[in-house]
């Protein structure tokens, strides 16, 4: 399975913080995962949208594999 995590405004807009997706040939990259979970609400998400795969910063073009955790969130604000 692929675990999808959403944080902050992304979580508020999509309405959940965790979802599981069955791996599929159509889920090659993080952007494919985003399309699958966001659907038409993708237009409402904050830009730029950041991506992490397995707790490391990644890109929408990064490849996704079975077992990965893919997170979507707005620009961060630590410190």
């Amino acid at each position: 399975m692929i675990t999808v995590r959403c944080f902050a405004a992304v979580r508020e807009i999509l309405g959940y913080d965790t979802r599981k997706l069955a791996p599929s040939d159509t889920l090659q990259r993080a952007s494919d995962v985003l399309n699958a979970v966001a659907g038409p609400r993708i237009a409402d998400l904050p830009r730029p949208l950041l991506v992490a795969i397995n707790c490391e910063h990644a890109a929408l073009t990064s490849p996704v594999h079975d077992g990965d955790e893919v997170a979507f969130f707005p620009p961060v604000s630590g410190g």
Partner: protein
Amino acid sequence: MIVRLQTEDFDPEHEAQALGVKGAGARVSFVGTVRDMAADRTITALDIEHYPEMTKAEIMRIGAAALARCALLDVLIIHRHGHLAAGDRIVLVVTWAAHRKTAFRGCEEIVDALKTRAPFWKKEITDQGDIWVPGEIPAP
């Protein structure tokens, strides 16, 4: 290197002393606090959300990079999350080095990296409503 995430407050001097770093000529500390004003609004509190599984790992990577690049002797990073009031401490970054320039450089690099890379999101509770604090876009 010590990295800690917590909801409770901390005492900056007590935490720095506890590391017992020897041989450092210079120690630079950064303490970030919740501001009570921003532009036109009064801030009463700050809700800090984070990505627990990622936060500590990412901060460790940030600290380790500065430790190596600036020849630091040690690094301490404490970051709070949860519900904070105006004036509360949010973050402590302490760097130790033989000389002042590297201690300053390391501390500022870590604070800058926390701003753009550590997965925290802040919602200000203000007299004009609740507002997500815009994050900083990392340089490409």
